[in-house]
């Protein structure tokens, strides 16, 4: 009896399970997918490409919800859902930018932010799965490959279909083929946009205080070669055995830009942290991590390590520990991407107390060079959902950023409403928030700007560092006067670098290898071997520098192991390089 009941129960439960699985089909194309709530509901959801084509005829222009030129962008106000990683701006909805976009363009932005990239990735996955991507996604730093994959699957808007309403972006793509090549997939689609630093801030050097130069009896102006640098570090150590002559942070994948000064001195001009890739005169993509130059670089670093001229906590210290050492004066030469700000606070006047070392030569590098940062980061910053009801309006908003007026708008607001242009006695035109910022709530105008004026790193897709442009036009005397006297108007950082580069560098270059988009199949193919190869390179680098492995006896084994991966990876990068070269 009991057995029979069990069988009956099992049969019943099995039937229930089958019915529930069959009922899992669900409904596709729900009206709420990715759209705002305040517009007339359409009974069908059209694919964006179809809606763009449908609106082409002149007779249908009058029925468009948007204006092809001028502001407001839309004829009736619309609401779009916006999301992204929070970043420094805590409350996006409270910014002048969001409010002004609504007022000026007729687009209300409902903003949702997420604390960090990991949270965003999880939310993005759930939004993809539930077909509820927000209309506009920004302040992202996600992989180009994954966005291209999502775009090809139909989740993301293809900007190339909307270039007719994005004339400024179209013009920019035409005049900057490298930017176009970087963003365009092999089938001609553009699924995301990244920030371009057309003129970016200088981004690396080794710093030393002038007080230390005097104390230890040297001058950075006399350091021309890697041997000179070694001798100075040795002299420092002999005079003060307790001080750390050189400290860096080479843990993991970040914080390694300080090493670029030394790496460049050996002719290794790639800018990535681990892989040092180059393109030779014949267009061949090479991995410099296998070269004699790289071996010489590692040997030099090992020499510094063995003689305790390089901080033995280089591979393990955290940023906080590193900063703390520098602030306490325990280190003589150190690096920081953001300059002295990182450890000394935002006091521009302090640059006059410091010197920098950014270029040297060696037997592998005859002339002192400085590698400018690549104009594009290897990431996607802005994306639009393919299911949005307002692709044209959003594309026009994004296109505005590629005008001078639009660029200033996303950075500082509108002149006379949030800032005034101020030209100092030297002719540097800067933006002043005096008279606009809330001094009762914020300690500085910059803080007010990042909290209430703009959304940092969101739609500022086109960057031109005005302070760098300005200082490059100054004479040597004007530059020295700027560093000695100020003003403290944001030029000091650029002035510091300009002064250093004029004294030490013969030539500024871009790295010969620039990141290029890969197809999905290519990215899949090299994903695992590249991950393994990078891990191995980092491991060997640490072991060679720290002396755990002898570079002379183990170099061949290292080359063999890395080569086995590179042989799989090189053809993929070569194909991407050849495509980019063909499109120029």
């Amino acid at each position: 009896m009991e057995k029979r009941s069990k069988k009956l129960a099992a049969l019943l439960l099995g039937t229930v399970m089958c019915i529930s699985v069959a009922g899992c089909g669900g409904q596709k194309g729900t009206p709420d997918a990715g759209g705002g709530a305040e517009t007339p509901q359409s009974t069908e959801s059209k694919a964006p490409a179809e809606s763009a084509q449908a609106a082409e005829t002149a007779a249908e222009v009058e029925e468009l919800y948007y204006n092809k030129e001028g502001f407001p962008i839309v004829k009736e106000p619309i609401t779009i859902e916006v999301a992204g990683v929070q970043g420094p701006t805590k409350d996006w909805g409270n910014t002048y930018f969001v409010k002004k976009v609504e007022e000026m363009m007729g687009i209300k932005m409902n903003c949702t932010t997420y604390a960090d990239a990991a949270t965003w990735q999880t939310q993005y996955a759930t939004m993809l799965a539930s077909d509820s991507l927000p209309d506009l996604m920004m302040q992202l730093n996600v992989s180009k490959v994954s966005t291209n994959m999502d775009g090809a699957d139909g989740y993301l808007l293809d900007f190339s279909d909307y270039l007719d309403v994005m004339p400024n972006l179209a013009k920019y793509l035409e005049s900057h083929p490298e930017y176009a090549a970087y963003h365009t997939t092999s089938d001609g689609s553009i699924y995301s946009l990244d920030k371009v630093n057309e003129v970016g801030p200088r981004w690396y050097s080794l710093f030393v205080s002038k007080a230390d130069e005097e104390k230890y009896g040297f001058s950075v102006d006399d350091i021309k070669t890697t041997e000179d640098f070694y001798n100075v570090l040795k002299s420092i150590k002999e005079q003060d055995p307790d001080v750390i002559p050189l400290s860096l942070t080479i843990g993991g994948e970040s914080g390694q830009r300080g090493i670029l000064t030394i790496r460049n001195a050996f002719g290794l001009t790639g800018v990535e942290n681990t892989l040092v890739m180059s393109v030779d005169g014949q267009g061949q993509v090479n991995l410099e991590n296998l070269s004699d130059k790289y071996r010489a670089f590692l040997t030099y670093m090992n020499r510094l390590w063995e003689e305790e001229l390089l901080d033995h906590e280089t591979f393990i210290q955290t940023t906080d520990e590193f900063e703390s050492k520098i602030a306490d004066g325990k280190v003589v030469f150190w690096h920081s991407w953001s300059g002295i700000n990182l450890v000394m606070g935002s006091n521009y006047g302090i640059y006059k107390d410091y010197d920098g070392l950014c270029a040297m030569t060696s037997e592998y590098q005859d002339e002192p060079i400085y590698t400018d940062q690549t104009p594009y980061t290897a990431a996607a910053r802005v994306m639009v959902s393919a299911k949005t009801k307002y692709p044209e309006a959003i594309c026009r908003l994004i296109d505005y950023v590629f005008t001078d007026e639009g660029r200033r708008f996303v950075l500082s607001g509108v002149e006379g409403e949030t800032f005034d242009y101020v030209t100092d006695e030297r002719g540097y035109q800067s933006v002043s928030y005096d008279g606009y910022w809330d001094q009762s709530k914020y300690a500085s105008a910059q803080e007010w700007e990042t909290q209430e004026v703009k959304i940092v790193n969101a739609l500022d897709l086109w960057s031109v560092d005005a302070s760098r442009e300005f200082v490059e036009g100054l004479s040597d005397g004007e530059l020295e006067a700027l560093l000695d006297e100020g003003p403290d108007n944001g030029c000091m950082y650029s002035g510091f670098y300009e002064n250093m580069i004029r004294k030490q560098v013969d030539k500024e270059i871009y790295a010969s290898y620039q990141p290029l988009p890969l197809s999905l199949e290519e990215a899949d193919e090299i994903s695992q071997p590249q991950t393994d190869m990078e891990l191995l390179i980092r491991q060997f680098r640490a072991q060679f520098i720290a002396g755990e492995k002898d570079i002379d006896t183990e170099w061949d084994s290292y080359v063999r192991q890395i080569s086995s991966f590179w042989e799989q990876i090189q053809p993929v990068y070569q194909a991407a390089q050849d495509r980019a070269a063909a499109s120029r």
Partner: protein
Amino acid sequence: MKRKHRMKIGLRDRVFLGIVYFVLAVYFLLMLYPLLYVASASFSDPKAVAGGEMVLWPVRPSLSAYRYVFHYKEIWVGYANTVFYTVAGTLINLAVTLPCAYALSRRDLYGRGVLLALFMVTMYVSGGLIPGYLNLNDLGMVNTRWALLLPGAVSVYNLIVARTFFANTIPWELQEAAWLDGCSDAKAFVHIVLPLSAPIVAVLAIYYGVGHWNAYFNAMIYIRDRALYPLQVFLREILTQGQFMAQALQGGAAYTTEEMAVMIKQADTANMIKYAVIVVSAAPMMAVYPFIQKYFTKGVMIGSVKG
């Protein structure tokens, strides 16, 4: 005059006891040190903490972190939400778990073995993050408080503990007597079984309550409205903010010097308050724990099979 008779402990036993006490002392210090470290760090200069100067006692003590925390409005919003989710969530948990456990403990419930087996399958196998999200999305619970109260209303582990308690502790004869007097199942549960089940109710309340207090993952996935976030999500934001800023500054070339200055200040603030926020969020549980400790230790064995 009475003399206390002390049992003589042999040398080997004394050595053994010494080793036991030594090991216990070591474990005690290992457990105590992180608590002391966090408490001391919350009163110390954040740069000293980050630089490794602070080892045990506060260095350059100040109350600036606590002052900032008490003015940080979102923390108090999170606190209120956490208290709500803990109280309401625990009540829902108990209201669902106890009747279910009682039903499964009844030997006259046909198919209870199959039902229990089905429950247990869910302990090892789940639909995963995306199906779970889709499910709640279809139910309209995403971005509502229900998303933190209803999913996980029954913990199968707790259900089994309660079921075992009911089966082994509540006399069957007592229930039979009640039925013979005309009591329904529901009345018997409410008027007879529950009053005798204070220990298991207390244990489940503690387990569920602590779980709700510390929970953040579901809030991170299902809630987008910051007014609904529990405290742990804000704490996580503060903890990750410092790291995010440091990584962004070191890894990216995309910020102006003014933005970097603001980010540095935000990272410093995050570093300054993170230990204070940890103390503030853990303090209620730590204050309550001494009073409920015996229920925790009881809870380990309360659902076990007896005799």
